Structures are given as structure tokens and as C-alpha cells.
């Protein structure tokens, strides 16, 4: 059918799209002209248009900062270990929950697992301090009373990585599980019945039917995760980090906060942001291309 009649037939869907598109237009694409701040010696009084240009000077300054290279390395470090652990966790949980027969139990678990997603990192940070502090935290006090040495959860940088990771998994696994569970409902029940008849055990059914069934979801989420590598949330590393683990806890987002916002160096903040976005785009396109090549599936 012609474009006109197609539109007339499905106009409700386009109407629903209107608000999200407006949102992206106003808040994501609109402000993009602000990128020029990265190429200017931004003076807040002269504003964006009349501040003097300084080309790549800001980038040169930023890249030569010792703290920047540490922040850059840490961003990738934290994101990679997150990917390795936080990515499979919801999949495994979803698979396990899927096997649970009693739908009542399933629903309870789903709801309860989702809760941590809503807790603010500020609260989590305070909680973790009470629980995991090296000398005064509850866990270490119990260990000490039982005769063991304290475990430096928050003060040794390697232990801190584990704590950081655990906090992330605890907070996000519920949300990811819901997504995969939704994907699981799309698998044809008959496939399971047929496999059972053929004598496939639980694990084999999972491996041959369930996993392939949610493969598209996994791939899409994986590509998105790769695309987000150069970026990292601000709250988690900032709240959980401290002076003793700053070797690992200083990331690009905390760097931008400290340099860009606290000292008013907007040029630097914008330059780092632009840098992150460019790399993120490269990562995303590459991951997508690779995925299409090997699995015939991609986002674009």
C-alpha cells in the first residue's frame, strides 16, 4: 500500500511515538551544538558563541593529565569486570526462575529481586560502610570475634573491586532478570514438549531450547553494553570509592565531576564527554558489525 494509506492505517502507533521522539529531539539532539564548548576556551560570561576558539588545546591538556589516564583505564576496567559478571547473572537467574514450577514462588522472587534497583546509591553506600568497614563494619567485627583477621572489603583495592561488583550485581540483577523472563515467554511451549518426549533432560532442554530462544535478546543487550563501555555511571564509583582505592575508583565520570563541575572548567568537562561519546559510537558500530557477521543479528 502507498505510504499515505499506510500512515493512515497505523497512525495511532506513530502518535504514540511522537512524545518519545520529541524527548530525544529536545534533550538529546537539540543540545548537541553545545559540543563546540570542547573546542573553545569557555568563558561563562562570554557564553558559547563569543568565547574564543582554542581548537584541540583542551583535549591536549586533558590527555596529558595524569589523573585522566588513570580515570580512563579504570572506566574500562570496571566496565569489563561488570560485563563479565553482571551480564550473565540475570540470564542465569532468569533460566533458573523459569524452571520453577510454582508461579506464586516465581512471582514473589521476581518482585523481591527487583527492589534493590530502586534503592539510591547514597543509601547503599552508607549501608556498605556500616557493614563492610575494615575495623568497625559488622561483618569484620563478627570475623574478629570468631578469631579471624578483618577482610579489607573497602580499603584494599582488589577487595574493593569485588565489593563494587557485588553491589552492582545485587542492585541490577533483578531488572535484567525481568527482561529475560519476558523474552522467555516468547519461546514456543511445543518445543519443550517435543524435546521432553525425545528424552531431553532439564539441562539439555535449557541449553538447546531456552538459551537459543533468548539469543536475540542477549545479543542486543550485549551490543548495547559494549557500546556503553567508555561511559560509566557517576554514583556507584563516587559513593563506594575512597582515598585508599582511588587507584581503581577514579573514573571518567568522577573526573568530570571534580574537574569540570566543582572547578567550573566546562571546556574540560565537555571535551571528556565528547571523547567518551565518540569512542562509545565506535564501539557500538564495531560490536554491531561483528555480531551481524557472525550471527546474522544486529541492532541496525
Amino acid at each position, binding site marked *: 500500500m502507498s505510504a499515505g494509506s499506510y500512515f493512515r492505517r497505523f497512525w495511532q502507533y506513530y502518535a504514540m511515538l511522537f512524545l518519545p521522539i520529541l524527548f530525544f529531539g529536545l534533550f538529546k539532539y537539540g543540545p548537541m551544538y553545545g559540543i563546540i564548548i570542547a573546542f573553545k576556551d569557555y568563558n561563562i560570561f562570554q557564553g558559547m558563541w563569543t568565547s574564543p576558539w582554542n581548537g584541540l588545546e583542551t583535549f591536549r591538556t586533558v590527555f596529558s*593529565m595524569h589523573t585522566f589516564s588513570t580515570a580512563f583505564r579504570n572506566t574500562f576496567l570496571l566496565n569489563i569486570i561488570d560485563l563479565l559478571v553482571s551480564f550473565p547473572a540475570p540470564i542465569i537467574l532468569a533460566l533458573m526462575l523459569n524452571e520453577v514450577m510454582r508461579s506464586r514462588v516465581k512471582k514473589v522472587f521476581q518482585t523481591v529481586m527487583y527492589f534493590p534497583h530502586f534503592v539510591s546509591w547514597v543509601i547503599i553506600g552508607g549501608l556498605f560502610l556500616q557493614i563492610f*568497614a575494615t575495623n568497625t563494619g559488622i561483618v569484620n567485627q563478627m570475623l574478629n570475634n570468631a578469631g579471624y583477621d578483618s577482610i579489607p572489603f573497602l580499603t584494599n583495592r582488589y577487595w574493593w573491586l569485588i565489593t563494587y561488583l557485588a553491589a552492582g550485581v545485587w542492585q541490577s540483577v533483578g531488572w535484567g532478570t525481568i527482561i529475560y523472563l519476558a523474552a522467555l515467554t516468547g519461546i514456543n511451549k511445543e518445543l519443550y514438549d517435543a524435546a521432553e518426549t525425545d528424552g531431553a533432560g532439564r539441562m539439555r532442554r535449557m541449553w538447546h531450547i531456552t538459551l537459543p530462544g533468548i539469543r536475540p535478546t542477549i545479543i542486543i543487550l550485549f551490543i548495547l553494553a559494549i557500546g556503553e563501555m567508555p561511559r560509566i555511571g557517576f554514583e556507584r564509583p563516587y559513593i563506594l570509592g*575512597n*582515598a585508599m582505592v582511588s587507584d581503581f575508583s577514579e573514573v571518567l565520570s568522577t573526573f568530570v565531576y571534580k574537574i569540570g563541575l566543582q572547578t567550573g572548567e566546562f571546556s574540560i568537562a565537555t571535551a571528556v564527554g565528547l571523547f567518551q561519546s565518540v569512542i562509545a559510537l565506535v564501539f557500538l558500530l564495531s560490536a554491531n558489525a561483528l555480531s551481524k557477521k557472525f550471527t546474522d543479528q544486529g541492532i541496525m
Partner: protein
Amino acid sequence: MALVTVGCGNGQQAGPSSASSTPGASSAPSASATPKQKSTLRIEQFDRGKSFPPGLAVNDQEGTRYAQREFGDPNNIKLEYVPVPRSQEVEKLNVLMASSDAPDIVFTYDESLAHKYMEQGGLMDLAELIDQYGPNIKSYLGETLQYGQWDGKQLAIPAKRAFTGITSYMIRQDWLDKLKLPIPETTEQTYEALKAFRDNQLGGQGTIPLGLALHPDEYIPLVMALIKDPTEEQYYTGMQRLGLQEYPILMDGHKDVVRTLNQWYHEGLISPDFGLDKDQKVRKQGVSTGKVGLYSEQAAQSYEDPEGGIQATLAKNVPGGSVVPANPFTNDKGKRVKELNPPTGMYVMVPKTSKAAAEAVQYLNWLAQMPVMLHYTFDGKDYEMKDGIPVKVQQDLPDEKKIFNSSDILIVTNGLDLGMQQSNVKSLGASYPEELMEYAMKAFEYSLTDAVTVHYFPKPIAAETKYAQILKGKYEELLVKSMLAKPADFDKTYDDMLKQYLASGGEEVHKERVAAYADMKK
């Protein structure tokens, strides 16, 4: 707000209506005729997140209404207070200034930020306006005005900081009594006392002889008190000004101090988790639950709030528990060196885009007179003169008559300057309950003994403005890591961290300071 401006009488009544003999506050006499049409003056105000009684708000309470009555109405100016959250004052101020919709009067405690605005040309030159409208500003803020100058222009009016002492040490008197020890007055005596605290576990299990937090009010006094007595040159070239205070990282003897602290830490004399205690909460809790023996804090802070403050809570938790001020550390010359706050408080500025600059200066001039300052200092309550010091009178005011957040409105001064150091100390102590007054005054006195003021260069150090935040973090990292390192690894850890510090901008700051010092000495 409308009910305040309409129908209010003119501002000729005497100041606080009370039995005391305070002269009436005069509204600012404008040198020129009162403007014919009503102008609006927008003033920034800190919002500290406290909730207000119904009908009142942070920018609509007796504090703001008083200003409207006494200053705004007689001069036909409408005052509009613009609230800004205290914890985000820097970020929000940046946004306001960039939007060219900033209030006519803005301010910040952050000196580097003020310098940045001056450098970028966003502030109005107030020299002429002060000449015209600001006689009170000139007389009260005379010497402070120089700190607000840039390139020969008066781009900010720094508030006067009446009292520049910062911290004092506090020690458990009851512990000393138990051990039959006097209040220690030298580093050696203090070291012995700390060991005795530990050996006798006077606070029960988990006794902390020297409470410490990762906060400049606690670690800077400790380092400065123990470091080798600095020469004048060292003060300029070895210090680095990161924020309000100076950090002695490149001073002669800094490594030795940290080595001593490392030793003390491993002897179990210092708060074990101090590296995680960025907001002093854990250390403060340690004091109120009776575990900590000696600690540093803002002078007399433990005595604030006689109901729920630190001393009060300690007394509740531990019968007979009390903390008293001490000056426990001496350096190699027997001096008890500590730092002072700069003689300036807030930097009050008028953006270049303001259309009400004259009114702004008039407002500040009105604030800078004794009756008004006294009125705000006592939150609108009565006060009386005792021995030449104004002292508050117990009075219960209904909420509508109380002044909230008075120090946020009285932006021209940080504390009241009564003209003499002794008077300032006395008047500070006077606000404490009877039985603590003497101790509070001692704490304020101690914060001034052998204290050194900020060492200013003629022009601010550009690298410090740029790297202050990063370097502060790196210093704290160096301190924590070096103190926690095993004694055998101390040298390597300290040297590594120092290298990192220098690479993160510390070297640049040092070079600039050395050059500026050489210039100064020419």
C-alpha cells in the same frame, strides 16, 4: 510577600524593641534622592534544607521581612531572595552566572571560584559605587576590601571574618583524672598519655587514643603541629593552597611527620578506619560513645547544642565523661603551630549583567552597620551589653518573629567584629551555656596560639585554582596510604604517592609559587 510591602509603616522605628539601650537602626541614607519607581533587588540566599513552620519559607521569614521593612521600603526597593541549596552552591552559582539571569547579589565561600569570575570578566567594578553609597562598607570592611580587588578593580566585597581561629584539640578530662595525669602540653607528654589511654583501654574495647577523620579540620592541625618549624620561605614555597587551607606537602620535614603518624597508627593509637571517615561522622560518634581520648575539631564544636551535642551526648553515655580543650603538640621549637582561616569570609559579588548595582551596594551598606549586624547576630532576639560585650537575653519568640539562617543574610561579616581580639573571643564564648563558657573561650584562645595566617601572593596562583580539587584528593590518598603502609614499605609508598601528587599538578603549583616568591622578594 505582598503583605509585607503594602501597608507596612516606614522604617523609622528603633531596632530591636527591648529594654536595652541600643540605638535605632538607620535605614541606608541614599546619597541621591530615593528612586521614583520601585526597583527590584535580587539577592542570593543559601537554602540549608531545614523545614520551616507553616507560612514561612527560607526567603520569606522575619530575617527577610526585616530587611524589606528597614531597607527596602524606605528606599522603594523590592527585595527578592533567591534560594540556592547550600550543598550545591558552587554548581548552582556557575549555572546562574552562565545564564546571565543571576541575582544582583551573589556570593561564594570558594575563593578560586570568585577569582575565576574576576578573571573571566563577569563581575562589576564596585569601586565608584562604594565611594558613593558605601561609607559603612568602607569603615567596617576597610582592610578586607583589598582581597576583593583584581587588576586594580574592586570586583568583590569580601565579608570580614571576625575570628580567624579554626581548630582546637579536645581531650578526655576524666581519663586524665583516672591516670592522674595533667593535661599534656608537649608532644612527648601527649605520646605517653596516648599510650596510657591504649594500655588501660579507658574507653572499653575498641578504645581510640587519638581520634582522626579524613577531614582537613583534623589532619591539617595534626601535621602542622608536628612538622619541623617552617621558615618564611617554606611557608611560601613549600605550602600549597588547596581550597581554604594550606597543605604543607612540600615542606621540609613533611615525610618525617607522616612517618611518625605511620608509627603511631601501627601502635594502635589512631582511629583504624580514619581513611573512610570523610565527613567526621565516625570520629564524632567515637567521641560521644566514649571511645576517643584526644581529637581535633572546630573550636568549641563539642560544646555546641547543650542538648544533643557531642559533650552532652558523651555525658549521657559515660557518667563523668567530659572533654576539655588542649594544646597538646609542640614542634621542634616548642611552638604549637596551627593554621588560621583567611581574614575574609564570603566573597560577595555583583554580576556585570546586573541592572541594580547601585541598590545592591546600598543594601550591603545598610547591612554593614552595628545595629543591623547585632540584630541579625542575635536572630532578632533581645540582647544586652555586659562588660562591653553584647550578650543574648533569654527570650522566646514566636516563629514569625524569629530570624532564621541569620548568618546567610548577614553576608558582609562572618561573626561579629567588635574591634578587639579579646572581645571577639569573649563574645564567642558568651553564646555557650554558663558552665561551658570558660572552656569554650579556652578552645577559641587555643585556636589562636602560635597560629599562622594564610600566606598570600599578590596574585592568585593559577595552577592552584585549576588543580585544587584533584590535589586535595591526592594529598589525602598520600596521607592514608602512607600511614596504613607496613613500616617496612613506608618509604616506597610515600615516595610513590608523592610522585603521583607532583604529576597531577603539584609540580606546576610548586613552580608557580617559587617564581611568585622570587618576584615578591625583588
